[in-house]
């Protein structure tokens, strides 16, 4: 949906007029990300990260398709073909580092995007579907990133594949056959490597499809904004182009500076030296950890060390790890406060920051060795994580007294809203 005051697309010359009748693609772009799409005038830089995430996906697809031209998905030569890309292929080192660090950049951007959603309660009605689709995108991203990390067929690739597919063996009765079905064998080997490559190539396009749905669902109510007050009138909005194309362009520039700094000056900062050793099925590296973006969830997996009534510890860990993400699906109905923005929710705001610290603590523990002290901290932090979503959030929603909201976005920005008086009291006009 667009607001009634949206600018209308007017084809300027005979060619665009002809095109507008046959295939109105320019009209579609104009109404989606052009001057025909009115957007709240008060969006801050936290609203840049959707566009940045879209940029990261394109970056990954472009570099990934190129890497696939030089890579060989066969367990006998995969490791060597990656070294071939690094040493022999023109600019191969840059493309591979761009892809590997692009994955990390993608997750940085998406985590900020998600926590923006937490703070401003972007998941609330009428935007639940946008949020649900976003969680689906995140799950697809995790699967894609995991399978991509297996492809270089180094030690971390191999043992990561073994441990992660081992998660499925925790499922009662069907676990072991399921793991063998996923791997196409008893341990990761050529069959697993080939299918992971095939799916790693496919899933980004599935993600692109779900992103289209995500944006489609977004364009029905339009973007939320830092006040959480819905758009009421024309003075609350500005056209997407040139205002937000410019703002997003600036954000993209800042992002690229940071990304290139890592890419060109510390390309292995986020990697593991063990993955430069070819896969060896007979020797496990002393300290296996997943990539940093999985650490919080890995910590939750390892937090379960004792059987829970009749459920084995292994299964509990796996269930808890998946539940940590699946709980997000219920967020629109767990947070029942009618006020969206954390700016007007004093109590909610405090718990938001505690949750952020909690997730960082989980991440730190997930990246550390499985020693007693880190496991103990993980157990406390994991308990808090679930408490936040299942107990604290519903409770805070019911006992909190929110601060007064501005009448409109215009009032929040300008300090007064001339139109508001007219609207509030038609007799005064």
């Amino acid at each position, binding site marked *: 949906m667009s607001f009634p005051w949206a600018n209308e697309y007017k084809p300027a010359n005979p060619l665009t007029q002809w095109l507008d009748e046959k295939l109105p693609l320019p009209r579609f772009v104009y109404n989606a990300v052009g001057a025909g799409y009115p957007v709240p005038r008060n969006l801050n830089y936290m609203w840049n990260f959707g566009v940045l995430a879209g940029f990261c996906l394109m970056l990954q697809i472009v570099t990934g398709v190129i890497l696939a031209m030089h890579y060989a998905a066969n367990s006998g030569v995969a490791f060597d073909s990656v070294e071939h890309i690094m040493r022999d292929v023109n600019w191969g080192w840059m493309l591979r580092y761009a892809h590997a660090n692009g994955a990390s950049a993608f997750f940085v951007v998406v985590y900020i995007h998600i926590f923006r959603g937490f703070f401003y309660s972007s998941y609330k009605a009428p935007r639940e579907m946008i949020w649900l689709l976003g969680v689906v995108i995140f799950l697809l991203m995790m699967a894609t990133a995991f399978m991509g990390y297996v492809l270089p067929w180094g030690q971390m690739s191999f*043992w990561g594949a*073994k*441990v992660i*597919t*081992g*998660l499925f*063996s*925790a499922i009662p009765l069907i676990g072991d056959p399921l793991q*063998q*079905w*996923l*791997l*196409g*064998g*008893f*341990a990761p*080997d050529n*069959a697993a490597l080939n*299918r992971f490559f095939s799916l790693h190539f496919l899933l980004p396009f599935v993600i692109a499809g779900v992103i289209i749905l995500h944006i489609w669902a977004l364009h029905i109510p339009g973007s939320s904004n830092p006040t959480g007050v819905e758009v009421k009138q024309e003075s609350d909005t500005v056209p997407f182009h040139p205002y937000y194309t410019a703002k997003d362009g600036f954000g993209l520039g800042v992002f690229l500076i940071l990304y290139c700094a890592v890419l060109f000056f510390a390309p292995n900062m986020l990697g593991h030296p063990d993955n430069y050793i070819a896969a060896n*099925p*007979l*020797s*496990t590296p*002393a*300290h*296996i950890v997943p990539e940093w973006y999985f650490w919080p969830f890995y910590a939750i997996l*390892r937090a*379960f*060390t004792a*059987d829970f009534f009749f459920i*084995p*510890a*292994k*299964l509990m*860990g796996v269930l808890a790890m998946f539940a940590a993400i699946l709980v997000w699906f219920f967020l629109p109905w767990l947070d029942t406060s009618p006020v969206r923005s954390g700016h007007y929710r004093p109590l909610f705001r405090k718990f938001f920051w505690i949750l952020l610290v909690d997730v960082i603590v989980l991440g730190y523990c997930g990246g550390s060795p*499985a020693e007693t002290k880190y496991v103990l901290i993980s157990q406390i932090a994991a308990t808090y994580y679930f408490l936040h979503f299942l107990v604290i959030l519903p409770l805070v929603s019911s006992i909190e007294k929110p601060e007064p909201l501005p009448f409109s976005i215009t009032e929040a920005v300008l300090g007064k809203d001339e139109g508001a008086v007219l609207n509030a009291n038609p007799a005064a006009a």
Partner: protein
Amino acid sequence: MADEASIDPAEVTGEGVRRRDFINIAAVSFAGVGGLAVLYPLVSQMSASADVLAESSTEIDVSAIQPGQAIKAVFRKQPVFVRNLTKAEITEAEKVDTSSLRDPQTLEERTKEGKTNWLITMGVCTHLGCVPLGAGEGEVKGEFGGYFCPCHGSVYDTAARIRKGPAPKNLEVPPYEFTSDTVVKIG
């Protein structure tokens, strides 16, 4: 099909409508069954292929393994631990009360008759599949003197039974037989 009496006569009047219903149901069912039939090979192709399943049985000469020593062999592309237990290790394994174990089994159940000193297990941790330490020269054996998995801290005893940590089961005993006093055939 629904009971005739329960159908509103008004709906039954046109005989052609019911013929059409039948054709609809038959066609959709036929296409549905056909679709499911196509799905089966699409799912089944993911399972281990014939060459992977063809068990490469491994023969190992164990004559050189002294009591207290162990070797790593390969079976189905996964490590197998062949360990010659010392008398002390056997006694220690036998004196454990099996009812106190997470996966209760005696040493006798996990070895061949008259060959209780030969402990042959997969070198695959039953938690998430790492290779436990303890078979190689100078590796940590863990606090129960068997195997220790460094990934998530599972500890196995001298009968390779799970004693501590997240793993749910004892190290798996693969199918094997002694073809002579010194040669064991796994698989």
